[in-house]
């Protein structure tokens, strides 16, 4: 009941005219950046950070939330009409969505995507309301050793699970952690990595780093490979759905939501896996399997819902624990830090008004998005005709302006350029950007927890695993790191069964989760095969870092993690 009261208070804050205005600006901008190629919600929030300094933090975050959700809606429009998904989370939508558009059913594809996003976003946000306080209650009881372990898990999971090459992921993580070291050490005041530059004593401005990596690096990268011929857009009328479309869409929406939310909430869940799982599930359950590959509406409805539900899921660890699990959440956390708000489990206590207004605004923003997306889809599609020179010059222009406006220092522009070139090189050589940003944000917090933990244990290293939660989390970390190794051993022993995706199920797997488990494992194997060299290198590395957990790698460690996910999915299913 208390939660409900807080949420109602949140609504009363979010529904003031000025905050409604910011929510509206947010969803408009979000849809626009989602539709526009080359610019996504993470970059949009980063570019807006400097502009929002003078705003009330609550208003700023309401706007950011609108951009975040809006980006999801806009992204589906591009992938359906253009078949060029801007973000990995909408790749699956493009498969069936673009086929539908080509066969003259663009209106229905856009409608099921928008309404499905609304349904999933609303249910997902309701789940966020239900779960976040529970997670907070649990998290505030944790000490520094456990908190450190959870941060380590978040860093490792984002780095090792997402992306193609783990080695390149860890390289990016190292760079991010190193950037986070710059400046005066908060405990002793010792100056690290400042190279005699007094302007570096306060550390690199997180806004400047985010803008450099997300905006400048991206703009330079696209400029270097700009597609010169215009792309074919499919003209579209007003989105609508017939009775048959509704009938075929509502179940995929709910199932997609059930996949999306738990995966979004996991440290390395993201939106790729649940959208993929949703697609496979719908294909299996559909009464019209022959339509898949030629534009089946279920293949749009399910993945789009999964995508939006995972966005809501992502906000759970971000608000409850201060852990970002995707790029937009990372930039929003950077915004908290900029506003002088300490993210973490205490956020709900220290800033209840902000948090609940933010959550309430998600409901409002989601409704606004449905209203502006259904009738206005043809207008949004026109944005795609914006001349590219203006688009990318504009990104550079606003990146420069924003980075300069933070401190009015030319020095920041030099940093912006250098880190922008770094971002360019990372895109060129396939270093993922996310581990860098997460390392930058979580590195200083990990160090703080490390020092407090060992302070409490008077320097005794066993203080790091003095809490049961910490031990459990470190075991999960070890499993995440060693799973590829174990899979490879299985692979070597039973090549034929693994190729077919028939990983032996751990005892206790219920029949209902069989589908999920084998799909996830099959996927993991696929990644593994293409990435053998890196895995090998990486395993050597981890073997030396975590010898004490080597013993626990025995029996198929991939399964517990997989099963954990499947269980959560099933819980979600029962609930919805």
């Amino acid at each position, binding site marked *: 009941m208390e939660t409900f009261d807080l949420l109602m208070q949140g609504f009363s804050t979010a529904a003031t005219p000025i905050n409604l205005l910011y929510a509206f600006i947010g969803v408009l901008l979000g849809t626009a950046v989602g539709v526009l190629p080359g610019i996504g919600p993470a970059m949009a929030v980063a570019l807006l950070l400097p502009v929002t300094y*003078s705003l009330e933090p609550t208003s700023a975050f309401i706007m950011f939330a609108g951009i975040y959700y809006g980006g999801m809606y806009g992204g589906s429009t591009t992938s359906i009409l*253009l078949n060029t998904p801007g973000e990995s989370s909408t790749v699956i939508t493009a498969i069936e969505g673009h086929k539908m558009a080509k066969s003259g059913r663009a209106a229905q594809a856009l409608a099921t995507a928008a309404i499905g996003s609304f349904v999933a976003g609303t249910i997902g946000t309701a789940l966020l309301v239900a779960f976040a306080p529970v997670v907070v209650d649990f998290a505030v009881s944790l000490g520094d050793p456990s908190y450190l372990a959870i941060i380590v898990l978040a860093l490792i999971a984002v780095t090792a699970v997402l992306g193609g090459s783990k080695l390149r992921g860890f390289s990016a993580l190292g760079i991010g952690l190193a950037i986070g*070291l710059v400046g005066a050490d908060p405990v*002793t005041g010792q100056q690290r990595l400042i190279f005699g530059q007094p302007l570096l004593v306060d550390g690199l401005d997180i806004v400047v780093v985010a803008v450099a990596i997300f905006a400048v690096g991206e703009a330079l990268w696209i400029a270097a490979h700009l597609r010169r011929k215009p792309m074919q857009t499919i003209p579209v009328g007003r989105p609508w759905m017939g009775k048959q479309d509704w009938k075929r869409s509502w179940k995929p929406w709910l199932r997609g939501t059930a996949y999306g939310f738990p995966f979004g909430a996991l440290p390395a869940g993201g939106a790729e896996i649940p959208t993929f799982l949703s697609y496979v599930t719908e294909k299996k359950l559909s009464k019209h399997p022959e339509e898949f590959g030629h534009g089946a509406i279920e293949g749009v409805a399910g993945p789009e819902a999964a995508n939006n539900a995972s966005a809501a899921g992502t906000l759970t660890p971000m608000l409850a624990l201060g852990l970002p699990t995707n790029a937009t959440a990372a930039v929003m956390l950077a915004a908290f830090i900029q506003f002088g708000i300490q993210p973490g489990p205490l956020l709900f206590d220290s800033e209840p008004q902000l948090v609940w207004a933010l959550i309430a605004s998600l409901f409002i923003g989601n409704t606004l998005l449905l209203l502006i997306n259904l009738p206005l889809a043809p207008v949004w599609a026109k944005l795609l005709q914006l001349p590219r020179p*203006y688009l990318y010059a504009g990104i550079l222009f606003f990146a420069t*302006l924003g980075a300069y406006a933070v401190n009015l220092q*030319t020095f920041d522009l030099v940093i912006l350029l250098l880190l922008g070139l770094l971002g360019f090189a990372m895109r060129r050589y396939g270093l993922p950007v996310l581990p860098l940003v997460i390392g930058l944000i979580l590195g200083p917090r990990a160090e703080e927890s490390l020092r407090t933990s060992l302070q409490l244990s008077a320097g005794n290293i066993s203080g790091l695993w003095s809490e049961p939660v910490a031990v459990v989390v470190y075991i999960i970390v070890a499993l995440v790191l060693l799973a590829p190794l174990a899979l490879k051993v299985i692979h070597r022993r039973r090549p034929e069964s693994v190729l077919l995706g028939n990983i032996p199920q751990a005892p206790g797997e219920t029949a209902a989760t069989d589908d999920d488990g084998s799909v996830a494992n099959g996927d993991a194997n696929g990644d593994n095969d293409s990435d053998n060299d890196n895995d090998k290198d990486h395993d050597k590395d981890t073997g030396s870092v975590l010898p004490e957990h080597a013993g626990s790698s025995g029996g198929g460690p991939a399964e517990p993690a997989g099963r954990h996910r499947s269980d959560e999915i099933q819980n979600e299913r029962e609930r919805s």
Partner: protein
Amino acid sequence: MKQLVSRLKGRSELGLAALLGAFGVIVILDALSLNVPYSQADPVGPKTLPYIVGALLLVCAVLLAINVLRGGHGEAEGGEDVDLTHPTDWRTVVPLLGAFVLNIALIDTVGWVISGTLLFWGSVWALGSRRYIRDGIISVVMALGTFYGFYLGLGIKLPAGLLEGVL
């Protein structure tokens, strides 16, 4: 020598490994140069994390170099407007960087309105637009608009430079 050259050909990614290694060495050297007495209240001290990070970077650098020499390569990032079939187009990137550097050099002396105009106009030109007049007008409008927008809307006073007193 010739053999070495042929082996290094197309392996520009080794430069990335070298960069990572350099970062690692810098981080560790910097940590070594810190001089902190042991403190009961802070047994970890400010050096521990730099050592860990430096070691991580060095290990990654070595493994990346091995990976590249064995024929591994990172997958370049795709995107809606990205066409990876043609190589890096330096004739776009270099002028773009030029416009950026020009802005850094000029912003404090000539002011944002002029340097911002040059930045936008130069970037649009670098990206291939050749409608000089229209681009110029848009550039001026963007720079002036942001100048007044920041001043009136956010209370941030961007440098007026040469146009001090005019604006």
